[in-house]
């Protein structure tokens, strides 16, 4: 059959030399023709493995079949039955670890490009302006509060509003989206995409209360007892940056990735002085860490005109970032300094960073995480001259809500403890999901947990 001969359709994208200096999205997306071609590669398995790989169980073969028939709008609606934020997931999900990893075609050949197709149908529907509203169940007069407008909170809001409940999302920042807005940069996830998804929820009737910090403006018990909410979902994410606890870490020019990215993405510092938040325009930047956050920080710094090096203490194989991101970063001219660990950061008399001392590492025996443990090589210290250090070694859960609600059970890492079947916390009527439960994880896991929580909340409300 000719069908097998069709290769996986590549994603057209901006050339590295161009995109390294602009904030436009890197991949352009499939055209209708390539989408149909790619869709035709799908074997439409009777017992699709891919679906089991998807944390929210999108009916992948069904939506791909609709793409193949050219029914793009219908395909989009198919995806949306399971996934509230397809345009986002199509862009930032690690499909190579999930659906595409299990695709049967992948055994001999390359898997079907599920993520690219998902992105295509979502964009197609949005650009067509032809967004069909789903059916909304009869009003139940039950009120649910979602704390945090990140992917977890938005998923819960979307699911519960369709079930007829009244949903209010409380968000501390001035914009919705959580990490999708303040963390992941424009060139990887255009903010308009996130905004469109949120607008859709608003159209469905979800109420958004911005500039509202739960724990300060109201505690969760107050939301339940005084504000008349019947259930609360906590999706406050892992917004507490970790530092290395080395000398010089508070010098001017040392940033957490959160700060660096927030300045650029949320506060639009790269448009300074049109926007008032000043950008961090420096020459030589080192980013510490090997995850997606490190890649995003490095690529943002590059776009702001810096010469960028990523410093990571293990080897390339151990880098937690998506392969595609590392690849993109290298293509754009970012240098990797692997098996190196910072020892201290050196400043001048005005507390400004001028250099960083590192030590070389070698890999030893595997540790608890199964990754080979990096060991410092004695006497191999060296100095890197630079003016900016971005620390991207991870985030811890934000402690504000647990602090103001002692009865909420938390783990020793500060995450909220839940029943994984229902995402219910130690307090009845209070559910949690996303990074606040799993530690810094992924968008789709946050959504998956949101899904489970929404289902459980619906059942809880029915009984109440």
């Amino acid at each position, binding site marked *: 059959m000719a069908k097998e001969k069709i290769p996986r359709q590549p994603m057209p994208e901006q*050339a590295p*030399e*161009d995109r*390294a*200096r602009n904030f436009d999205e890197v991949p352009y997306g499939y055209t209708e023709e390539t989408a149909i071609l790619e869709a035709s590669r799908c074997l439409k398995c009777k017992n699709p493995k891919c679906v089991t790989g998807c944390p929210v169980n999108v009916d992948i073969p069904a939506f791909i079949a609709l793409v193949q028939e050219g029914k793009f709008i219908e395909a989009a609606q198919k995806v949306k039955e399971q996934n509230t934020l397809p345009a986002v997931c199509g862009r930032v999900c690690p499909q190579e670890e999930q659906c595409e990893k299990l695709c049967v075609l992948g055994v001999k050949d390359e898997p079907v490009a599920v993520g690219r197709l998902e992105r295509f149908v979502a964009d197609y529907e949005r650009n067509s302006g032809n967004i069909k509203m789903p059916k909304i169940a009869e009003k139940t007069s039950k009120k649910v509060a979602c704390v945090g407008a990140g992917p977890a909170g938005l998923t819960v809001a979307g699911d519960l509003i369709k079930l007829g409940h009244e949903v209010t999302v409380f968000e*501390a*920042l*001035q914009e919705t989206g959580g990490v999708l807005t*303040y963390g992941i940069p424009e060139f990887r996830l255009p903010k308009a995409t996130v905004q469109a998804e949120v607008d859709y929820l608003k159209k469905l009737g979800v109420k958004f209360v*911005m*500039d*509202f*910090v739960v724990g*300060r*403006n*109201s505690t969760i018990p107050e939301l339940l007892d005084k504000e008349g909410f019947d259930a609360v979902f906590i999706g406050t994410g892992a*917004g*507490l*940056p970790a*530092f290395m*606890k080395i000398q010089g*870490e*508070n*010098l*001017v*020019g040392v*940033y*957490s990735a*959160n*700060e660096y990215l*927030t*300045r650029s993405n949320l*506060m*639009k510092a790269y448009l*300074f*002085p*049109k*926007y*008032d*938040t*000043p*950008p961090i*325009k420096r020459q030589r930047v080192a980013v510490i860490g090997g995850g997606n956050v490190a890649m995003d920080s490095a690529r943002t710094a590059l776009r702001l*005109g810096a010469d960028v090096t990523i410093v990571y203490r293990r080897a390339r194989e151990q880098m937690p970032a998506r392969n595609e991101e590392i690849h993109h970063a290298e293509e754009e001219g970012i240098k990797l300094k692997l098996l190196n660990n910072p020892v201290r950061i050196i400043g001048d008399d*005005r*507390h*400004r960073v001028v250099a960083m001392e590192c030590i070389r590492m070698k890999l030893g025996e595997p540790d608890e995480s199964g990754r080979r443990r990096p060991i410092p090589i004695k006497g191999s210290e060296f100095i890197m001259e630079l003016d900016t250090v971005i620390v991207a070694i991870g985030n811890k859960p*934000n*402690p*504000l809500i647990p602090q103001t609600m002692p009865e909420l059970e938390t783990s020793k890492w500060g995450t909220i403890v839940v029943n994984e079947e229902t995402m219910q916390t130690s307090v009845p009527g209070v559910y949690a999901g996303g990074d606040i439960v799993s530690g810094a994880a992924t968008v789709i896991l946050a959504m998956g947990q949101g899904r489970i929580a929404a289902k459980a909340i619906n059942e809880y409300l029915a009984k109440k």
Partner: protein
Amino acid sequence: MKLTIDGKTVTAKEGETILECALRHDISIPHLCTHSALSPFGACRLCVVEIEGMRGYPTSCTTPAAEGMVVRTNTQALQELRRNILALTMLEHPSACLVCDRRQLCEQYRPEAEKAGRTTGCHTCNNKEVCEVRVLAEDLGLSELPVPPSYHQRPLERAEPFIDRDLNLCILCGRCVRICKHQHGTAVIDFIDRSSRTHIGQAFERSLLDAGCRFCGSCVDVCPTGSLADRYAKWYGKPDATIETTCIFCDAACALELGAKRGKLITAKAVNEDVPICVLGRFALPEFLNGTDRLRMPYVRVGEVLRETEWKEAIKAMAAKLREFVGDGFAIVCDTASTIEDRHIFKKFTSEVMKSKNYIEIKPDARGVSRTSLPKGTKAALLTGNFIDAAQLKALELLIVQDCYPSAVSERADIVLPAAVFAEVDGTIPDSSGQKRPLRKACDPPGQAKAEWRIICELARAMGAKGFAYKSAGAISKKLGIPKTDLQVERDKTPEAARDPKLRRTYFRGHRIDEKVRGLQELLIDGGSSAGAAETEHKGNFQILEKHEIAPNTHEIVIEAPEVAKKALPGQFVIVMVDEKSERVPYTLCDWDARKGTITLVVLEKGQSSRKLVLLKAGDKLAHVVGPLGVPLEIKRYGTVALAAGCYGIGAIVPIAKAMKDAGNRVLTIAEARSHYLSYYREKLQAISDEFIQTTIDGSMDIKGHAVDVIVKKLKDGEKIDCVIAIGCPFMMMLTGQETKPYGVKTLAALNPIMLDGTGMCGACRVTVGEETKFACVDGPFFDAHLIDWDELRDRRAAYSAEEIHSLGRTEPVAPHHNDNHKCMSLHRTRNRE
């Protein structure tokens, strides 16, 4: 004519005054109203001397030197007299910093001036680093004022292009009025009103613009105080390098003195103080050269896009392409904004390397417009500016643009090269009479930009040509036989554009100068350019209900924010965004009313964000107010609590005083103000404290000194204080901590680092307390003042000052509508020295 000054025999010239003669012989006599460019005035009287055989103390600036005179300039009596004269002058000036006992320590902690709206002391004065008054005060040992000073409550004037006036600093020396008259024949500005209301201004309350100001900046340059300021340069402080060069905005070729700081151009003024220069030379250059959209990197077109590249690549690409166009199909077009050396290289390259006769040099017209068309048959062109109509470019097969700013032309180019121009290069330029003038490099070009001759020489060499091995512009001038050139310092006529700003040029290399320089848009010559003022949006939910300037530069703002009011506790703060493009800036909650749903902030105008906030009126809305944030202060029974408050902290201390009192403490509140007119909330604090003490730095009200002085005195006297809480600027809080430490009294300070989210998400607010890193927004704002790393805090707070200053300098002029209380403060205040 010989005379003796301070025992030294000196020779005076005919008609010289004693002051002039002394200064010429390096004998310094203090003086303020005299200025080298001006005739004597005798107003400040600081230059008094003793002359043998003459009674009294004549002013040396008005007394002609005479044969055989014996003059003493430095007796104790004279110093005493001068000190008194200066002290009197300082009575209508924000002079507290001059007589502050901790002047040295303050200078050490913050040597540069901090930005502010109205200036209320040296540490927020743009003149600080170059102030003649400060030097005098130091030299004369001024340490106290005879009576409390007064503050005129004049609004900050910043509605004019380029010039900010804070006449509260004016000492009426008259230098500005005299220089304006000297420069232009009639003075645009004058002394207005009489006696105590006298001030500098324009007749009939006209604006400078309407009064015919030429914006030559001479008045700004001679003002000895911070009263008159160049808005762009204002907060950069003193340049670390000055260089004299020639202005090439037009061919009047005025001699400019340029000041740069860390390689960045910040000021420009006339070398010859006797002849004014025009607004372009005086005010436009730094902003023009520092434009954020300058070309910084070479670009090569790849398909649809211009791709950033390295010089090596760009030169290689150019060399390869140009080889195909050798002959008359190639043209170079430049104008006289390129130096003679640049143009020589362009010409040589055209004829020797490209074998073309089409070297085209445009002489701009009176407006600075340089436009021409390409010769028929041109296939490849190199343009050094926006000189050719887009339609004509379509026919080209290769277009190279070498310029300072992008333009309609560079957008169509195949290769774009960033050029260093004007004050960024060395070279020679002819003036209108053909006389050659020097151009000298005063600042660094942006990014990778290079001198034009250098670019073309590199290109020629890449194409294998000989005779392009120059190492400097000087080497080219030498080859061309250009003799050493001089600046045009002396001139008999005022340049046209300095007589009438409408006669200035509008274009530089085909770019509208006013598109790059904000202030010029107010000084329209014609229809103006498309670049309009930025629109401001105020569509939030948080309405301002009341707004008062309760003390100079200190604004009390009542905002509708029910969610905040409902939960606020003492010591907490809010984060405010004025509009969707604003920064997120924290302000401490000074009061709230849960029932009415309102909160009260006390805001000091500092930089861009607080300025935006204080320029709003009652009725306007804020885009975002988030809070209450931060850990509330632990309110419990300590015994005696001393609250030390300064600047906005006087407002912030109110809820703390109330709560501490309610918790059963003896509350001792000490408010510190630089001078009596800066104190506010006295009655309020008196009512809620067991003991209220006002200190003033200049001693004009109650006790002289800082708040901590009172605390230390009480501790010394054996009074028991169980807890000290300090809120104010970092210097004041640091001081409080340092001086209570020996007594081991628990001392808390409310820290105010730069914040972003205020919820613990970013870490921007990191501070070092003891050995630990803390996030001020979620672990603070209160920390042990004995453990805080204050130097680090200061430097972290200043992390973006350079960027902020640049953006402030570019902000549009604003009308002073926020000032509704102009009434003069009375001189007669209670005064009671320790």
